[in-house]
């Protein structure tokens, strides 16, 4: 079913120009480091030490990134993950597990002050923060729309999912879009029960997904570039970098938290 395109009040569109924005392009990092950078940069925005920021992620290796409230054993076939060199990392935001391989996904995070989503419901804020992506995908000929609560979907299946954390004095909103996917790796490493699919009218989680590669001939990097152009057009964002201090803080957090089983297996 295809809902209305704008799930949030259109008047909030003008907020994109209220803030000064920084854009950080993809740099391959380990999955744990990517998740650590999310925490560090959310904190930096919360302390007003960083402008509102859009950061694209790149993945140095295979990973399952679990939602904050997911059980490792219920979601991941742990032995198979090891066998396929898939890291298991828990992120700070809720939502569902994401599985990816280098260059198979487009992933980005937005770090914004809470005022950016003022007066919006959770559902409205998800649709609002991803609205530029839906628009960029449509420009590329993909029949995309936002499916509440937190999915970007299309006539060919689900394209991506978002998750938010509201902590550290700021809002973290990250989204992973499937560019390509290995159905074999997916079904070997993740567990998706029938209950999860119960209201989707589908019996297979693999069939549910419609990666962009099936929907466009464009290489992944061209899609990322089109998204960047759309975002810069909307916000006049300037290009920036992860600061040395942020990198150092994230490296420490990677060691102490995000590669530490105490955090990863907090819900075993």
């Amino acid at each position, binding site marked *: 079913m295809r809902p209305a395109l704008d799930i949030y009040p259109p008047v909030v569109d003008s907020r994109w120009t209220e803030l000064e924005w920084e854009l950080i392009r993809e740099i391959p990092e380990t999955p744990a480091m990517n998740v650590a950078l999310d925490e560090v940069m959310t904190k930096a925005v919360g302390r007003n030490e960083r402008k509102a920021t859009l950061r694209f992620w790149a993945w140095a290796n295979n990973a399952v990134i679990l939602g904050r*409230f997911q059980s490792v054993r219920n979601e991941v076939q742990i032995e198979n993950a090891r066998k396929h060199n898939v890291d298991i990392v828990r992120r700070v935001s809720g939502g569902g597990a994401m599985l990816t391989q280098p260059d198979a996904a487009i992933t980005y995070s937005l770090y914004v002050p809470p005022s950016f989503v003022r007066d919006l419901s959770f559902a409205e804020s998800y649709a609002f923060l991803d609205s530029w992506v839906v628009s960029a995908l449509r420009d590329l000929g993909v029949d995309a729309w936002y499916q509440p609560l937190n999915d970007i979907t299309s006539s060919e299946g689900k394209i991506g999912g978002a998750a938010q954390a509201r902590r550290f004095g700021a809002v973290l909103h990250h989204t992973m879009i499937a560019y390509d996917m290995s159905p074999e790796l997916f079904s070997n490493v993740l567990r998706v029960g029938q209950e999860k699919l119960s209201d989707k009218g589908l019996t297979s989680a693999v069939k549910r997904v419609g990666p962009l590669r099936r929907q466009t001939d464009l290489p992944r990097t061209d899609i990322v570039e089109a998204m960047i152009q759309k975002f810069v057009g909307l916000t006049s964002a300037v290009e920036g970098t992860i600061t040395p201090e942020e990198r150092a803080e994230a490296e420490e957090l990677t060691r102490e938290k995000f590669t530490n089983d105490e955090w990863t297996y907090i819900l075993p």
Partner: protein
Amino acid sequence: MHGEYKTPGGKLVVVDFDVEDGRLRNVMVTGDFFLYPEETLDRINAALEGMPADAGAEVMLEQLASAIPEDASLVGFSPEAVVTAVQRGLS
């Protein structure tokens, strides 16, 4: 015991627990939901821990709902969804 419930149009709630001497023990509520603040999950688990397995959905819901602070936001699920998952695990 293991019970699951997906709120239609919402998120999945999974409850794993044991039953010892007729009471729920080692309760672990998980899922792909969103919850703010995240520490609320400890309150949810604590409210179910030690609950008589035969308390019935209504009593469980009452206890659980009263344990969730007013300023907490459950997004994509509800206390009812958690209790449904528990009841499914018991049956």
